[in-house]
């Protein structure tokens, strides 16, 4: 509750900041401060401190897990703003408005981590999506940004329709919008209810860009301003996953055996399309878009069946993946062109940048000693504990090997191909900011429980 209220308030404050305070730097610092406050407010709920104590009448349910998920999202946003603040202000002259949108998105995300009612799911998703449409099309002069915005909007609205039909079906079958269906109305094993769940499944897959509902992802990520792609691909996506988890952790039994068919189908198509298509991209940005699809394939593992591994794993995965992606996009922003050739010879020109890029890529590829490894590890463990077949894991790992193929292309370009990197201007401190992310990944690569232990204290 604290998170929702404070983030909404902060959003409003940021809105007004754009009138009152002009300096982009100071706006950034206000946003950072706001985020810090947000994190504190969110965490203080654990100690029983509430901004407003209110009975949500079963709309929201606050759990330690949800609050921790919030914390992760807020922390990621903090890192994101800290690193990309200057880039954000370069797009248009609405930096404060963008920060406001971030806060609104975070508000939506907080709803998504704590909803207990499908209505709140719907509202939360819309709160997440609408600002994203805006962010995507925020570069008004760029045709690609326009195009991406419109594509995203049309498809997003369409998927909202599907989501609503699904919710309606469930309501028709159970007479309730509650996540945990009360014992009234019709009972389980209803065809309509399962049909509704599948429709929700489709809509959620769309939000987390799982194949075959991923089509918007590459275009939108590619078209959107890189700095916002970074946000969309990481924090927004993670929030979507938390929502996805919440729905299906409770409801997955309703689908019975079908679940063990439908989910693997989606997982495998996601991995296939994400990984295989990424192989051929010459644009790093677009490749990262496909790779984010592929990563979603791994994250879907957590949905298979609730377990500690799934719950912890999705947190770890979301965090690690986001950190690596923010870092990777952070490097990409500074490149003058997005092609892989742009990275040629980066190791010579800027060894530190090349090193952190390598760590990010390692983490994305899931190579041990980086956090990405444990993220993938938890996912595999989750699905095996859930009793799914080993074949699924093997297929996933084969695709992971393919993913190495395209991630390492960048490493090759940086280290082994001589050339002049198309590097834009970089502030002296910038690589060190990225280094913080890299170090974070390395630490999590050896001690993943540093992140997860907090779930239990």
């Amino acid at each position, binding site marked *: 509750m604290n998170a929702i209220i404070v983030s*909404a308030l902060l959003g409003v404050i940021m809105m007004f900041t754009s009138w009152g305070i002009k300096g982009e730097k100071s706006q950034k610092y206000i946003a950072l401060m706001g985020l810090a406050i947000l994190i504190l407010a969110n965490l203080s709920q654990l100690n029983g401190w509430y901004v407003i104590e209110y009975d949500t009448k079963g709309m929201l349910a606050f759990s330690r897990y949800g609050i921790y998920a919030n914390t992760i999202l807020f922390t990621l946003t903090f890192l994101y703003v800290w690193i990309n603040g200057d880039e954000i202000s370069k797009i248009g002259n609405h930096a404060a408005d963008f920060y406001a949108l971030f806060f*609104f998105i975070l508000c939506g995300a907080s709803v998504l981590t704590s909803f207990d009612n499908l209505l709140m799911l719907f509202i939360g998703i819309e709160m997440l999506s609408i600002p994203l449409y805006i962010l995507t099309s925020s570069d008004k002069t760029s045709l690609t940004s326009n195009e991406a915005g419109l594509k995203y909007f049309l498809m997003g609205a369409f998927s909202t329709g599907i989501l609503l039909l699904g919710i309606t079906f469930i309501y028709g079958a159970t007479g309730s919008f509650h996540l945990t269906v009360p014992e009234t109305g019709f009972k389980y094993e209803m065809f309509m209810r399962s049909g509704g769940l599948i429709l929700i499944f489709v809509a959620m897959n769309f939000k987390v860009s799982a194949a075959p509902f991923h089509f918007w992802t590459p275009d939108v990520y590619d078209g959107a301003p890189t700095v916002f792609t970074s946000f969309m691909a990481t924090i927004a996506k993670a929030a979507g996953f938390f929502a996805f988890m919440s729905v299906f952790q409770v409801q997955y039994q309703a689908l019975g055996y079908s679940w063990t068919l439908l989910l693997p189908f989606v997982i495998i198509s996601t991995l296939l399309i994400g990984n295989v298509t990424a192989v051929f991209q010459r644009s790093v940005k677009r490749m990262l878009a496909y790779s984010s699809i592929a990563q979603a394939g791994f994250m879907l593992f957590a949905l298979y069946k609730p377990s500690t591994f799934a719950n912890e794993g999705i947190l770890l995965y979301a965090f690690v993946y986001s950190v690596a992606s923010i870092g990777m996009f952070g490097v990409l922003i500074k490149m003058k062109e997005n092609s892989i050739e742009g990275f040629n010879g980066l190791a010579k020109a800027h060894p530190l940048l090349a090193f952190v890029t390598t760590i990010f890529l390692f983490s994305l590829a899931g190579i041990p000693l980086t956090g990405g490894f444990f993220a993938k590890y938890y996912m595999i463990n989750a699905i095996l504990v859930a009793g799914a077949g080993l074949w699924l894991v093997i297929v996933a790992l084969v695709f992971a090997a393919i993913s190495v193929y395209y991630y390492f292309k960048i490493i090759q370009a940086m280290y082994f191909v001589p050339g002049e990197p198309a590097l834009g201007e970089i502030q002296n401190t910038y690589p060190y900011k990225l280094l913080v992310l890299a170090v974070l990944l390395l630490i999590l690569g050896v001690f993943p429980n540093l992140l997860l232990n907090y779930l239990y204290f």
Partner: protein
Amino acid sequence: MSTLQILFFALSAFAIISAIMVLVSKNPIHSVLWLILVFFAISGHYILLNAQFLAIVNIIVYAGAIMVLFLFVIMLMNVKKDKEPQKQLFVKLIGVITGGSFLTLLVAIVKQTVQIDGKQVMMKEGTIGLIHPLGKVLFSDYVVPFEISSVLFLSAMVGAVIIGKK
């Protein structure tokens, strides 16, 4: 056949025909107008169901505000009928077939749901659709989503400002 049924079928036919007309109209303005008619038909259904509040809101918000917005935009753009590009017939056919099969599947799902067979919808009667009970519930049980949707509006507003501002 009771009046109710006659009304129901008439409104349904009206709604479906108008909806189809939305698709087939070449002129976007006509489409908008047909869509408004669909909304009216749906509002009619709401009245049949004694959901008076929603019926009114539907007309005011949807048919009134939103559709007028659409109309304005279309007129703003001055899209002419002859300029309006059309998809190839083949693509359209595929679209129709896909939509049709989607409908078939959804109907199949409903048909499979034996639990709702023969269940009746309460027409005309019932107080839940009136403003008073709705308002009471909305501001007691549903005040949280209500407040949160205000945030949604705020963000939409910011967005419109960002995008709309030159």
